[in-house]
């Protein structure tokens, strides 16, 4: 079916000339034409995007889809529907499934299930080490041939610095990009939240900022030694972002991401022991939130990623120390980015959308994240005027835990189109 998107305001990173008030004509899953005053042909469906933005389909670099193994938390069908509702047309799943994604057959399993039951595109990061055990490297060549472009033991750091060095060196030849989960376990073990005055008052064990910063410093130095690319996942502290900024100034090919919860919330949210505030890395302090915002603004942080980490209700509904880390992030991310980063902190929309499209696409080595004639028709229509309240029971994700429950946000995805198909529409 053909589709004409009329009167939208195009925000299109990487294509400076294709921005502003433009129509898009979609034919057979591709963008046939971008221009002014395009006419709908016979049988062409028209979407009126007046006073709305049109973005390239959003890309989420960091999603836990839980399948295979933990389908009660989320599966590829529910996770991709949630992603579509959040405006994403490509998501990258992390390999801490059961079994973990550490070999070609699991990569192919995820791909097949995604083709059969997913509504958008799913790509996978594979493990750095077999079984995520931190002992032996995975078969990188085989994984590369299977389409993998990034590796991570996300959830755990590769503790052995020597092994991490070799992983970076070996990965560089394909090239595969290593995504670092920067957390020194010896400093974070047993911790529930950020270590600070709030953890002192609450009597919860803290995770110091140094647990992340020491790991970030180590991995930057190892990447330099290995002459490798490196991507730093979910940075949360002022110190980490400063280390990344310094590394980039020295010309190292190192990138970083932050999550919407880390650029919005502080550890004060933990008062009351609501387990929807339990995330890893933990919510930090005011200056860290501001460092995340500044990092996005000045480009140090090139990606916004959700770290969508859904859990079943019964797992989160328990004592704070016994609840698992992780929240449902896909369905609030772009609205939080718009409300917090654009409206509150005045960051240009083009910067924010690049961090949700072309920048993560580059790390995934995917030629997507921008809208061009003859390119795939994956795009997101966003209504910046709509105010709405986050209602977890309306989430399409199986994970309903969110620290944003009840919060009013401005701007919301009104349609998500993946390869010319309407995969989500707000009604």
């Amino acid at each position, binding site marked *: 079916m053909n589709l004409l998107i009329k009167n939208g305001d195009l925000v299109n990173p990487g294509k400076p000339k294709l921005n502003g008030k433009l129509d898009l004509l979609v034919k057979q899953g591709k963008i046939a034409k971008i221009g002014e005053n395009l006419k709908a042909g016979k049988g062409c469906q028209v979407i009126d995007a007046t006073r709305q933005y049109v973005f390239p389909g959003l890309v989420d670099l960091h999603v836990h889809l839980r399948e295979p193994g933990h389908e009660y938390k989320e599966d590829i069908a529910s996770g991709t529907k949630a992603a579509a509702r959040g405006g994403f047309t490509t998501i990258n799943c992390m390999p801490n499934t059961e079994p973990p994604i550490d070999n070609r057959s699991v990569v192919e399993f995820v791909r097949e299930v995604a083709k059969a039951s997913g509504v958008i595109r799913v790509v996978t990061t594979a493990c750095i080490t077999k079984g995520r055990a931190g002992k032996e490297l995975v078969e990188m060549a085989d994984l590369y041939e299977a389409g993998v472009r990034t590796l991570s033991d996300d959830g755990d750091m590769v503790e052995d610095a020597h092994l991490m060095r070799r992983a970076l060196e070996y990965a560089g030849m394909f090239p595969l990009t290593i995504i670092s989960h920067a957390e020194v376990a010896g400093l974070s073990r047993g911790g529930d939240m950020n270590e*600070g005055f709030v*953890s*002192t008052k609450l009597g919860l064990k803290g995770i110091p900022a140094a647990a992340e910063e020491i790991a970030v410093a180590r991995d930057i130095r190892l990447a330099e030694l290995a002459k490798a690319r490196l991507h730093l996942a979910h940075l949360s502290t002022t110190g980490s972002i400063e280390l990344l900024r310094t590394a980039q100034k020295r010309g190292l090919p190192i990138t970083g991401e932050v999550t919407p919860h880390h650029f919005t919330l502080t550890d004060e949210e933990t008062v*009351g*022991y609501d387990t929807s505030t339990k995330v890893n890395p933990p919510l930090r302090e005011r200056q860290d939130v501001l460092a995340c915002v500044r990092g996005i603004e000045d480009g140090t942080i090139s990606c916004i990623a959700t770290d969508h980490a859904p859990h079943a209700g019964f797992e989160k509904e*328990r*004592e704070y*120390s016994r609840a698992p880390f992780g929240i449902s992030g896909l369905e609030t991310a772009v609205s939080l980015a718009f409300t917090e980063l654009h409206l509150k902190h005045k960051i240009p929309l083009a910067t924010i959308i690049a961090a949700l499209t072309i920048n993560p696409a580059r790390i995934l080595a995917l030629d997507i994240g921008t809208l061009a004639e003859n390119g795939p028709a994956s795009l997101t229509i966003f209504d910046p005027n709509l105010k709405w309240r986050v209602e977890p029971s309306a989430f399409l994700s199986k994970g309903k835990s969110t620290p944003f429950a009840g919060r009013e946000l401005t701007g919301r995805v009104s349609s998500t189109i993946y390869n010319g198909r309407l995969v989500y529409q707000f009604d």
Partner: protein
Amino acid sequence: MSFTRKDLLGIEELSAGEIQSLLVAAVSFKEIIERNVKKVPTLRGKTIINLFLEPSTRTRISFELAGKYLSADVINISAGGSSVSKGESLLDTAKTLEAMKADYLVVRTPFAGAPLYLAKMVKSAVINAGDGAHEHPTQALLDLFTIQEKFQQIRSLKVAIIGDISHSRVARSNIWGLLKLGAEVTLIAPPTLLPIDIEKMGVKVRFKIDDELKKADLVYVLRLQRERQRGGLLPGLREYARLYGINSSRISKKAMVMHPGPLNQGIEIDDELAYGPRSLVTDQVTNGLAVRMAVLYLLVGKK
């Protein structure tokens, strides 16, 4: 000033007035427990469930007796003997106990914040009998009662709390209570047993015993858990006793001594002091009953 809460979860959220009204009520209950016949009918027909998910003797017995002196029906559940040990969730347990129409749930748990979580979920009055390293409000109330009884007033009193502040709910509850009632509080502990930014609560902090301890009117000694040595927090008990062990030569001649029990004699405090004339340890235990009776009474008064 009246007390109108459904639950008693911590001292932090109480006003000075609320604390005082609890302490005032405890005076009459202390009079009752000094009688020959201790039983009063105040809570006849009410049910108290002591849900103790962590070992405890004195707090559990104190709540049990407090309930019995008030004529309530009291049931004790401990972690080992309950379905909690079979993996039943805390919420399930609490919902079940509520469905049995328990009026009070007295909860001791290793998990900070769990009593607050329960209080939101059940209609029963929830009393925090110690949650992880967070709070132990009835301990602080009995300590404040004991201090007030001994010193008449808490305002401007110099109090030193010495020992493992990091892992201590007793310390946190007492710091809140003492500060709200106007005491000057100094904490004395090695850096490894002090939680980060604790001075932001409004206390002075000392790493070693110095003149601050000599100036104290009251020295509150905390129990040192022996496993702290294994956690890398201390080189050993011998060195701890040498640096922080309290004996009569280290404190002012007028100072009184308190301890929440159980004591590690010869480690954090020496025998002579612990049971000597300057110790308030047994008063604390007696006052614990009176204070817990007052808490049960005032919480039920709300319904």
